[in-house]
């Protein structure tokens, strides 16, 4: 009897919390609420935290540029899991009454897409590179991540012009890694080099077996796509095994962890990157970020910053009205809007057009542009 009473009290408490917060949230504030569904814990937490940092800088910039704009960003942990992401989205929509949401990661963005469309909540997907996100109808869903199909050509062009003939491709077996592998295989058909793919698990940290197989193949270059923690171990273990070759990668490796963890071993790594911190708009963001967080911003932070800035510009263009229809129409029409990731337009699927991709490298312990 006591147990049943206890459980009834617990369930009633939860339901009451939900009702109370739901009611009070709907009535008390006139701010425009924007959700940020990011992995704030778990394996992708450093990407989620980086994104949150970028969003905080964007909030400050919007506040100073548009003092009359009243937006509130509410964070929820997606745990980088589709089911938990739906939990978080439902709480943001039904309790916090968000009108727009930033979602980080392809599986999270894909899980939320149909729901946000149905609820007329504008979704801005960040670092969500899976091609399937923009399959199907486009209504309230936008994405500001350049797809692997845009990153890979610049890499294959470099590989061809430098006469690399055999590329070992180590890819994490997730939507991000597989998308890059597929792009490379597509691009290699018209290239002069051969690709040998090796899949790794999302949680793998021991790569000696794969690296020994690679060593036997004698490639003159290795491309990696996966977590930066994995890349650090690959560099270390390659060095232990005497593998001396040119390493290539993609934008997620530009992370302070790489410099701290791999140190000299990271020198000379070449990777495709979508964010140029040397141009004027980016320099301002870089300065603010470095002052506030004492580190270099990652592309995750840059995309998250851009996502919120775009939403802010859209809200301003719609005269600060809480009107996702107006916001959607505005975003569909924008052409070459300058941002820190380049001039932004959206295609008819809500995908980004115009993001600049270029090559960077690690030189003297810093991330710098690679020579063409």
């Amino acid at each position, binding site marked *: 009897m006591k147990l049943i009473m206890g459980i009834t009290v*617990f369930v009633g408490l939860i*339901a009451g919390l939900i009702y109370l917060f739901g009611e009070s949230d709907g009535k008390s504030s006139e701010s425009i609420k924007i959700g940020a569904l990011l992995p704030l814990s778990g394996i992708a937490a450093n990407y989620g935290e980086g994104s949150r940092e970028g969003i905080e800088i964007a909030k400050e910039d919007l506040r100073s540029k548009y003092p009359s704009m009243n937006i509130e960003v509410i964070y929820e*942990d997606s745990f980088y899991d*589709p089911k938990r992401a739906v939990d978080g989205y*439902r709480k943001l929509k039904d309790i916090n009454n968000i009108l727009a949401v930033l979602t980080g990661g392809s*599986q999270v963005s894909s899980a939320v897409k149909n729901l946000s469309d149905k609820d007329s909540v504008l979704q801005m997907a960040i670092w969500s590179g899976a091609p*399937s996100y923009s399959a199907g109808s486009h209504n309230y869903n936008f994405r500001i991540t350049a797809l692997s199909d845009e990153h890979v050509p610049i890499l294959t062009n470099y590989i061809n012009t430098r006469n690399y003939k055999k590329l070992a491709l180590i890819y994490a077996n997730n*939507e991000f890694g597989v998308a890059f592998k597929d792009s490379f295989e597509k691009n290699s058909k018209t290239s002069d080099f051969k690709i040998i793919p090796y899949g790794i698990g999302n949680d793998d940290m021991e790569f000696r077996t794969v690296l020994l197989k690679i060593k036997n193949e004698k490639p003159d270059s290795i491309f990696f796509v996966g977590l930066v923690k994995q890349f650090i171990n690959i560099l270390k273990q390659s060095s232990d095994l005497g593998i001396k070759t040119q390493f290539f990668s993609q934008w997620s490796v530009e992370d302070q962890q790489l410099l701290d963890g791999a140190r000299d071993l990271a020198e000379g790594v070449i990777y495709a990157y979508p964010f140029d911190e040397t141009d004027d708009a980016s320099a301002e963001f870089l300065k603010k970020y470095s002052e506030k967080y004492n580190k270099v911003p990652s592309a995750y932070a840059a995309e998250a910053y851009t996502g919120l800035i775009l939403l802010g510009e859209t809200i301003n263009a719609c005269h600060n009205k809480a009107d996702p229809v107006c916001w959607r129409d505005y975003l569909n029409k924008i052409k070459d809007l300058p941002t820190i990731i380049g001039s932004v337009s959206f295609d008819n699927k809500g995908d980004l057009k115009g993001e600049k991709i270029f090559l960077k490298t690690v030189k003297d312990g810093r991330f710098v542009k690679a020579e063409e």
Partner: protein
Amino acid sequence: MEYLIHLLILFAIYGILGISLNLVVGYTGLLSVTHAAFYGIGAYATAILLTSFGINFFVSVIFAIIFSSIMALLIGLILSKFDDDYYALASFGFNIIIFSVFLNWQGLTRGPLGIPGIPKPNFFGLDFSSNLSFLILSLAFLALIYFASRFIVNSSFGRVLKAIREDEKAIQIFGYNTLYFKLAIFVISAAMASVAGSLFASYITFIDPSSFWLMESIFILAIVILGGLSNLKGSLLGALFLILLPEALRFVGLPNDIAAQTRQVIYGVILILLMLYRPQGLAGEYKM
């Protein structure tokens, strides 16, 4: 209200999973860590049949039950060679194998890219696309599975399962073919788990292999242990508790830069305290 409905739908899905696993773990004493695999088979069967073949949801549930049952029969036959801890380890291995199939058979499952755009159920014009109607459907399935399970455990078949749990050798002496009973309940449990998978796929509208990894099997086992072994109502309580607790923690106001991590710690501490002061679970008959 939509948020509450969403949580109740998840409760229904995990209630089905808890009840079905309790039949194997609680009533029969077989420590199986392979339940997420059958859950995933149900989800993928429904997702593929709905998106690639346009088959009706309810027909896809039947196919999901069939696929899951066949796999459970094959896996169960192999698992029957093991006892106790070895059984658990072997079932662990099967979960990994099935997960690897989901992840790597890209031609069928699209691998890590997942299957998006899974439609909601429709039955002769009766549309379940609203959350409320989906909740009613989920609760209907939960009720069906609960009463079916109650029938099983209260029958002579159920008494044999409990006897196997207490002392398998003794019941064998009385002439009972324990392999048949263990296999049968394993298959029934897998079939029920696949129904939960079908509901999950249709509700979330996107699935990928990460939802059916080993940790999901452990989560379902936690529902059974927390709710109470060998008690069907306990599985419902366990599901309710483990679904609601992390959501309740979302309302705990903490600074943004530490909120997510702190909530994980609080969640862990609450579970530890519960097991310390209530080791038999919320409504259990015995401790593991």
